């Protein structure tokens, strides 16, 4: 639509008219708000730039689709499950080392997934790579339906809380916010609450399950994705009764921020800003409440393949991308506003993921596990202390 030159002209014009608003082009044009629907049917409010970015993203998604289909055609369907299949890039004469080709395939797959799984292939690829398919295969075929039948009509604190939250989960979405959508989401959440009574239902899971339903298309597959997510992909006890796992992740994140973005970390510290203010929602909803849908799902693409450390990469990237602006803040409210505004407008997943993986740099699961262990003891001590204080108050 506009060339870079004309864009700048417009920007200058705006600047002349509104001298008050002298932030980025982004902020200046933010006044021209348009409403549009994104790839997954969510209504988004954004400016002209956002619409353009979203169109570019659609085009990139199409391109990625072609790449994946070409791979299916040459390597066979489900090639990503069989790392032994020789990679075409090596040529026919080079299949001497199966191990090597498997390694090449794994690298190819990792790169490919970081570039995004096309929406049509997501259900299939997620289901296999996350381990959900394997999990499902260990129980009778009728497991989900049997579970639904068994819990029908049950009334528990979890079901009551779920019922509270159904209309408060992505309100206004063309399918999720319908009788049918509510019923499907309810069944998935209620079924899970009985599968793991330690978790039951935790607020935040409603958003995660809703998005899983949109992607996986069938309730049963969404259920298994939720199961594998909570039982295998994420750290334990993120959603259990005192959210201890969530507390641990927050502390690990705080340490990582200090290590990876020391300037931001010390500035935030000076302002008395606790990262959990923003990160709690990020980690519990897996960004589904903060990032635009396709961006969230691109994060989940990597999450299901590479594991929970991906959440740290992304969270760190969100801070890193705003480093300059964050360093200029004087109060907590401004920090939150900057982060909220950025996350809501991150329509280009590549912008985020490039920072998350290229700029944040390498973090091994092993190092993070060690840090988790260290924090676990501290968190348990603190939660225990709090309980005792509350109890002693009750006895008075």
């Amino acid at each position, binding site marked *: 639509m506009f060339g870079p030159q004309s864009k700048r002209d417009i920007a200058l014009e705006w600047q002349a008219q509104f001298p008050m608003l002298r932030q980025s082009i982004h902020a200046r044009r933010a006044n021209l708000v348009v409403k549009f629907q994104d790839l997954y049917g969510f209504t988004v409010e954004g400016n002209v730039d956002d619409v353009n970015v979203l169109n570019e993203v659609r085009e990139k998604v199409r391109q990625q689709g072609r790449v994946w289909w070409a791979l299916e055609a040459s390597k066979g369907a489900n090639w990503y499950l069989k790392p032994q299949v020789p990679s075409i890039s090596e040529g026919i004469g080079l299949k001497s080392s199966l191990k090597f080709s498997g390694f090449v395939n794994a690298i190819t797959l990792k790169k490919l997934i970081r570039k995004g799984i096309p929406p049509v292939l997501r259900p299939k690829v997620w289901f296999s790579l996350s381990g959900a398919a394997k999990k499902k295969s260990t129980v009778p075929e009728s497991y989900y339906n049997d579970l639904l039948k068994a819990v029908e009509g049950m009334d528990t604190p979890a079901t009551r809380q779920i019922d*509270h939250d159904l*209309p408060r989960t*992505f309100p206004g979405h063309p399918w999720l916010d319908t009788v049918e959508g509510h019923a499907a989401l309810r069944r998935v959440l209620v079924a899970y609450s009985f599968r793991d009574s330690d978790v039951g239902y935790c607020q935040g899971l409603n958003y995660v399950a809703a998005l899983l339903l949109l992607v996986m298309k069938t309730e049963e597959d969404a259920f298994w994705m939720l199961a594998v997510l909570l039982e295998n992909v994420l750290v334990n006890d993120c959603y259990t009764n005192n959210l201890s796992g969530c507390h641990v992740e927050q502390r690990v994140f705080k340490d990582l921020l200090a290590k990876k973005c020391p300037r931001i970390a010390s500035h935030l510290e000076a302002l008395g800003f606790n990262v959990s203010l923003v990160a*709690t*929602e990020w980690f*519990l909803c897996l960004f589904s409440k903060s990032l635009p849908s396709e961006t969230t799902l691109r994060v989940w693409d990597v999450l299901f393949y590479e594991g929970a450390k991906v959440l740290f990469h992304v969270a760190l990237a969100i801070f890193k991308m705003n480093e300059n602006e964050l360093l200029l803040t004087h109060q907590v409210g401004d920090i939150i506003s900057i982060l909220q505004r950025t996350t809501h407008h991150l329509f280009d997943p590549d912008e985020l993921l490039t920072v998350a993986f290229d700029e944040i740099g390498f973090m091994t699961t092993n190092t993070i596990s060690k840090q988790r262990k260290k924090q676990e003891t501290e968190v348990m001590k603190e939660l225990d202390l*709090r309980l005792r204080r509350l109890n002693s108050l009750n006895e008075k």
Partner: protein
Amino acid sequence: MAKVSPLAKYKLVFLGDQSVGKTSIITRFMYDKFDTTYQATIGIDFLSKTMYLEDRTVRLQLWDTAGQERFRSLIPSYIRDSSVAVIAYDVANRQSFLNTSKWVEEVRTERGSDVIIVLVGNKTDLVDKRQVSIEEGDNKAREFGIMFIETSAKAGFNIKPLFRKIAAALPGMETLSSTKQEDMVDVNLKSGGNSSQNTEQQGGGCAC
């Protein structure tokens, strides 16, 4: 952007069971609107508003919290930093009223008596479904030695009085809690918000 003299800044934390209307009360106060389509708050949410009183201007930082029981373990640090705790219940939900005692205890655990606590009975528009009388609310507040008011965020009833009541109870201007310079432009006010205050904030830059 124009720098102004430090504003007195106060932190208010909103507590109470799920769906009692914490977010609705805040939204009514911030934007004077009511929506039936709020998203459930996860963890904590933050909004700030400058309030113009007859004799002074204060900046309120509002901390909205998730109502589900298990989120309680996340909240103490916010209570610790707050000078005001607004504990809300739904007048049409007796359990939410009974649970306010737990919330009061939670606040006292963190802050002792060095805190203003307001008990708020919300949803008075649900006349036929009322399960908690105004007397019960009042009695409980007396028992705990805290303030009390009934509101309806939906009907827009008693929301401004609630905040005026809080403002009146705040420590005076002479004990400024803020030591930092602040911008007057309130970035948290979205479009469709309280436009008159918005302009006032953007235009007003007196350096006293």
